[in-house]
């Protein structure tokens, strides 16, 4: 039976799961939930995800939401197939978790409102909060200095290999890089090198094609 993913292929959190499934060579089916018409807030979807967001998955009888929990589940379930996303030892796994948690607390917390203001609000005809964008850029610069330093001595965020720590950043980074503040990454040599390398991966290219980018 094939994994059913409820979501929109252009949205960052469903992309996190899709990228994981592609890296792990797991078959899936996307059931489109239309965010532009707020389908994710309708009762039918709230049964799958009580916070009214995407993605959610159904795999036979098993149901799950929260993209990072879903990605981790499949990375664990299929640890012997496709790319090893979780690290090879308990200690390496902990380092992968550490940088994956950094994505939540330091990166996403800044990039999400940036993308909302620079990409989503204009699309919806709403006004962008320019002062907030400036403030977030400064904070993100400080955070990306730390990343750049980590990537000066590590090929990927958690060491020598591509792991969940890198993957989990990619959908939101993809959006950021399509805005006119992408210099914030491009001007940092190690971050730029890392971004070029992770986006050259076949799974990412497939995902971008599916999303129409």
């Amino acid at each position, binding site marked *: 039976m094939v994994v059913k993913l409820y979501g929109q292929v252009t949205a960052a959190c469903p992309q996190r799961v899709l990228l994981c499934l592609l890296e792990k060579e797991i078959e899936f089916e996307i059931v489109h939930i239309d965010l532009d018409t707020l389908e994710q807030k309708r009762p039918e979807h709230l049964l799958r995800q*009580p*916070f009214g967001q995407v993605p959610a998955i159904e795999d036979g009888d*098993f149901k*799950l*939401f*929260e993209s*990072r*929990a*879903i990605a*981790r*589940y499949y990375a*664990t*379930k299929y640890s012997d197939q496709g790319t090893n996303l979780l690290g090879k030892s*308990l*200690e390496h*796994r*902990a*380092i992968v*978790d*550490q940088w*994956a*948690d*950094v994505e*939540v*607390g*330091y990166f996403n*917390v800044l990039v999400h409102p940036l993308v909302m203001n620079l990409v989503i609000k204009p699309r919806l005809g709403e006004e962008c909060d320019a002062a907030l964008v400036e403030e977030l850029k400064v904070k993100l610069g400080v*955070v990306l200095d*730390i990343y750049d*330093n*980590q990537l000066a001595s590590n090929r990927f965020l958690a060491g020598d290999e591509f792991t969940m720590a890198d993957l989990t950043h990619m959908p939101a980074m993809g959006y950021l890089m399509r805005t006119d503040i992408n210099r914030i990454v491009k001007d940092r040599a190690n971050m730029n090198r890392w971004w070029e390398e992770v986006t050259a991966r076949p799974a990412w290219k497939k995902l971008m094609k599916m999303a129409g980018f």
Partner: protein
Amino acid sequence: MAMKVYGDGMSACVARVLLCLHEKETEFELVPVDLFACHHKLPSFLSMNPFGQVPVLQDDDLTLFESRAITAYIADKHKDKGTDLTRHADAKETAIVKLWSEVESHHFNPAVSAVIHQLIVVPLQGEKSPDAAIVEENLEKLGKVLDVYEERLGKTKYLAGDSYTLADLHHVPYIYYFMKTSHAGLVNDRPNVKAWWEDLCSRPAFLKVSPGLTIAPVTN
């Protein structure tokens, strides 16, 4: 050699790790870091956590930051002793624990920590007053999250099912501080959430950690 935790027991994120260590009956040494003197911003500390925050864990030659990565590591390393915090024997159950841990991280934490920051941390910094608009906005968000919890806890005793796991544990320090503010009604007015909280804060591991949670809120 016992694990070392760098931090101060009054920090919610440090307390999260200490709770886990106690639940797993694991020995550790708490190495004090003077937060008021900003020792967590000194180069010697930044070499352990470049984000300059507590906690940091050292276990032999492994140095780890991010409290939830630390709790996951401790729970996994010592999965055969103490409380089963991850339901490691069943991959699907582990995923459900992870799901509700993510909910804490993404839905609960941003709202509750914004309220705690205004009502507890800002007054300590001396110069500003709490921003009532930020408190109001985040109390509303928190209320909606707790509505989801109220429904969930009507079906299961704990967030991820019938046993206490990391999904519950991660909430504990911030709920403790939140209950000291004048907005404790958000919990007390939801019977299932209230019963769940009363259970969490009666656990022996919590009774060992709560004496360290010493910051008092300015109530408004």
